[in-house]
């Protein structure tokens, strides 16, 4: 089955336009690997990019521009990986049936080798620390576990890779993307049967709002 919950048009547009920060683009692109429908959408949006480029007013080139380019045509093509996503591969090229590229390339030696931090029913790994205005985390939530009710100062994007969870806005399984904006106060509950593995990106710290929120806050910091 292919995903039922897709990133919104604005996210797909920003992905096609290349105006997203890498953590958000990573969620969108990993969804694309799991979603033929959105691959098609992005293809259309790139076609739109081409159309807008054609309509773009021209900026005259420097006088020697063409001459310079022609002089360089016989240079050997620069070394390049077969595909750009390979460039992201930091350590390993292994295939993982659960984690598609491009996310795979951000995980080095694979899920089990990651530096998981455990707390109660939840384990997490921080990714992309070089983008400090985002929190990019891989999370594993024990089946049947409820996460603390929380709300957001910014928005939260969650892509399910295995298992599933439900919250007030619906039921999310592999490939689905949940978007939560600051107005959403939600309490995701992992499906029974299988641990829920997901990639989550928030662009501002969460505020815990449940009765134990303040108590958990210093430790949990999900």
């Amino acid at each position, binding site marked *: 089955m292919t995903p039922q919950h897709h990133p919104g048009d604005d996210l797909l*547009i920003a992905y096609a336009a290349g105006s997203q920060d890498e953590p958000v683009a990573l969620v969108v*692109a990993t969804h694309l690997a*799991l979603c033929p429908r959105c691959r098609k959408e992005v293809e259309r949006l790139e076609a*739109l990019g081409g*159309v807008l480029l054609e309509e773009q007013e021209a900026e005259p080139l420097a006088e020697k521009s*063409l001459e310079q*380019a022609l002089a360089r*045509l016989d240079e050997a093509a620069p070394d390049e990986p077969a595909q750009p996503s390979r460039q992201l591969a930091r350590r390993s090229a292994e295939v993982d049936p659960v984690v598609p590229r491009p996310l795979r390339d951000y995980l080095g030696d694979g899920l089990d080798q990651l530096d998981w931090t455990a707390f109660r029913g939840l384990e997490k790994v921080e990714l992309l620390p070089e983008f400090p205005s985002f929190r990019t985390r891989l999370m594993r939530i024990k089946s049947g576990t409820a996460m603390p009710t929380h709300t957001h100062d910014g928005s939260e994007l969650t892509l399910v890779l295995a298992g599933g969870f439900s919250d007030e806005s619906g039921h999310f399984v592999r490939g689905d993307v949940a978007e939560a904006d600051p107005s959403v106060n939600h309490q995701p509950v992992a499906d029974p049967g299988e641990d829920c593995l997901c990639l989550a990106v928030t662009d501002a710290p969460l505020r815990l709002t449940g009765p134990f929120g303040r108590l958990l806050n210093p430790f949990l910091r999900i």
Partner: protein
Amino acid sequence: MLSAVATEIPMPLAKSKVALVARPAPRVQRVMRIETPAQKTGAEASAEELMSAVAERRDRAAFVRLFELFGPRVKAYLMRQGADRASAEDLVQDVMLTVWHRAVQFDRNKATFSTWVFTIARNRRIDSLRRANRPEIDPEDPALVREPDDPADQVVDAAERSKHLHAAVAQLPVEQERLLRLAYFEDKSHSVIAEELALPLGTVKSRLRLAMTKLRAALETLE
């Protein structure tokens, strides 16, 4: 940083064997007519035809014409994205040399030339101006999810699609059209765009959504 040029070659999304088999690239007869690139009158070769000449015969005259047609637009694109004049010039060189070196990868059944150049320029910009990676799918990844009837595999006529998109963009309400151009050409998040236009973020998102609904409708007759 020229060595980084081609690390950012976009791959056409979900490039499919099905599409390649289903529709072999048509032979272009008009290609021979482009031997004099300066000619501006008469039936000029399309960018896709010029590209075939570059790919098949390393035709420099065809490359010159593509450079003249697209170089200035790519430069304008890069400058709107925040490149200064000098780095925009350098990046235009990179982009157009990438076109030359990667010519055989261009698949006119998947995309128009302008779409291909757009993706090359976009990725080059992310690499150079943003200094970030662009996460992209790997069409060869066994973990990539396909459907038996993968919508990404359906063959579209890229040129036809582009024509429909041109017409549909022209018919958008001006505020939606303007927003689309901002979203594509200014390297800004939608919330920054919203702030600059003094609009709520929700309005920006819903206008983009409305625009997309119209563009989709315009394409539906095609696909």
